[in-house]
């Protein structure tokens, strides 16, 4: 799932200090699961902000509302009766959800209270590891399930760079060489031939906005020529 992390407190303060009443929106999806922007986290942030501004001699109102999924309009529209009446909206969902909220309420300033960090796996409570950068060209079927985009510092697609040292990466010697791990995984599965085929360079399609039309829904959304 998407992993988010709350922004530094002062950054949030600077964003909303000019507004007297602010709606803080949490998300019941990824943000809740990674303990970064769920109902509890919204409540905690509101308490901290109220206390901070009270000490500054400023009275501000912070309202809390957590939608089940900030990336889905069916849930975001629950805010229709609340968000437009607020001076600003703070969002503790991922950037996708934050943007959907901003799009829904274009006359209301919307600020992210979190940074969207990664698509990752849960290692333990509160501990998450990035595993995917949504490049749109998944090759992990050929690299033993290890992503060379995310795990290799150089994003190499066709083998190690030659800088591998004792199984560690030359860019950062605290992280394992992804290609060493790919080699070992494929060797274990007797599939080393999978990396012998030269793969084309990554097109980095994730550098421009993409739209996904799922299989089976083409007729619904694509214009017929």
């Amino acid at each position, binding site marked *: 799932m998407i992993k988010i992390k709350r922004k530094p407190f002062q950054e949030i303060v600077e964003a909303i200090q000019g507004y007297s009443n602010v709606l803080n929106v949490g998300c*019941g999806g990824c943000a809740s699961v990674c303990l970064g922007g769920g109902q509890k986290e919204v409540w905690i942030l509101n308490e901290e902000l109220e206390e901070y501004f009270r000490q500054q001699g400023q009275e501000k109102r912070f309202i809390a509302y957590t939608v089940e999924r900030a990336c889905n309009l069916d849930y975001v529209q629950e805010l229709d009766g609340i968000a437009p009446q607020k001076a600003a909206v703070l969002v503790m969902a991922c950037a996708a959800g934050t943007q959907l909220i901003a799009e829904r309420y274009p006359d209301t300033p919307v600020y992210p209270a979190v940074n969207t960090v990664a698509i990752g796996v849960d290692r333990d409570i509160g501990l998450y590891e990035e595993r995917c950068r949504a490049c749109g060209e998944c090759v992990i079927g050929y690299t033993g399930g290890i992503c060379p985009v995310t795990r290799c510092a150089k994003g190499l697609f066709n083998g190690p760079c030659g800088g591998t040292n004792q199984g560690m990466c030359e860019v950062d010697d605290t992280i394992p060489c992804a290609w060493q791990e790919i080699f070992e995984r494929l060797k274990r599965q007797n599939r080393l031939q999978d990396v012998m085929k030269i793969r084309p360079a990554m097109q980095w399609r994730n550098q421009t906005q993409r739209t996904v039309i799922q299989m089976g829904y083409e007729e619904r959304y694509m214009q017929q020529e």
Partner: protein
Amino acid sequence: MKEMPATQDTGIDTAEIQRVLSRHKSQIKFCLAVCARCSMCAHSCFLYETRGQDPIYMPSHKMINSIGYLWKKRGKVTPRELQSIGDIVWKRCVLCMRCYCPLGVDIPFMIGLARRICREQDVYREYDRP
């Protein structure tokens, strides 16, 4: 599930629950009346299919025992009952929205409504607790 802290008021705001129920009265009444217990929704639920087809995972069962229960009790539920409803709508449903009803019952909407009621009473799933 999040438990109400002992230092906070553990009372339920019944009036607020009733307001939410009243706002969606027509849809709730329709869904509860129309459900024929045909179990077609069950086979569209991956949780039901992978949990040994335990009836408690049937979408209709979840709907009837969450929003249906709130409706039947006119919102007058105890904190313990609300916790149980929270367990149903969070631990037995992921709102994947795959559930299919041949009679047009919007089960995900009903589950979402139950979650909304729970949230407003400060009952919600906490992912750092069992």
